[in-house]
């Protein structure tokens, strides 16, 4: 009998590297589910989300973190959110759909995105080379997010701590995305 055991491989092999003033690593243990708010029933859907996860649904361009830090809601558009959460199983979308009981439309996005965490005192200087968004601390508060493009790649950037940012980009171009971020860091380090 042949071994038909199927294993998941992280997009960037659990990349992790320290640079002068910056740390960069792949975050591979998050699940990600998108939520679409049904037309005309947005407020009902928002109430359901808040009830299910105990997190107030943030405004567009912001994220909100659960008290235990295990789940973050990203408000990407008027009718679209992402739920980013720690989850062991492979059924992350049914898990979320179950909790929301039809109040939203949900789609698994866990494998659509590669996630990098960039942190350290020089992180912002490195991002200045590729990110058109104003990341000045007063312009881009902690938990604020933006969906933009960096080096021709669509990217979601979330500020999670004073000097820490999550960067999410398409998984198929993970290598190019890592190269873009690494180059930025090396160019300022």
């Amino acid at each position, binding site marked *: 009998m042949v071994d038909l055991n199927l294993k998941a491989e992280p997009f960037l092999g659990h990349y992790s590297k320290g640079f002068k003033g910056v740390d960069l690593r792949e975050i591979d243990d998050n699940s990600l589910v998108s939520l679409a708010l049904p037309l005309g029933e947005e407020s009902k859907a928002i109430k359901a989300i808040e009830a299910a996860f105990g997190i107030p649904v943030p405004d*567009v*361009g912001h994220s909100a973190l659960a008290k235990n830090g295990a789940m973050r809601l990203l408000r*990407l*558009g*008027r009718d*679209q959110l992402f739920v980013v959460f720690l989850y062991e199983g492979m059924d992350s979308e049914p898990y979320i759909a179950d909790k929301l009981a039809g109040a939203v439309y949900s789609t698994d996005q866990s494998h659509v995105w590669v996630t990098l965490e960039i942190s350290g005192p020089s992180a912002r200087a490195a991002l200045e080379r590729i990110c*058109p968004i104003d990341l000045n601390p007063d312009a881009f508060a902690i938990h604020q997010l*933006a*969906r*933009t*493009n960096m080096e021709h790649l*669509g990217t979601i950037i979330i500020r999670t701590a004073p000097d820490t940012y999550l960067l999410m980009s398409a998984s198929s171009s993970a290598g190019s995305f890592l190269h873009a971020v690494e180059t930025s860091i090396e160019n300022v380090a």
Partner: protein
Amino acid sequence: MIINHPLLGPRDAAEFVYLGDAALIDRPDPSVADAAEKFHEYGYLRDNPAGEHQELWYHEQGDRSWLVVTRNTLSHEISKVELARDVAVARGRGR
């Protein structure tokens, strides 16, 4: 250019894709008698004003919203930015 997105604030035009005249929202009713003529106008005839122009921009590298941007084609001054969905609803579009 900078487009002041109604939900997201000022964003570089490089995040957007340009389509053209916001009259493209007004897709004709295919059931009227002169539908072919109407669709011909809709598909091929555009005003090309030197001055204020309502145009469609798509925030492809952003929240995926279509916007109606009122831009002066001479000065590039942008006087108004609206969600195209709201404009479409206001113009009576529905299902």
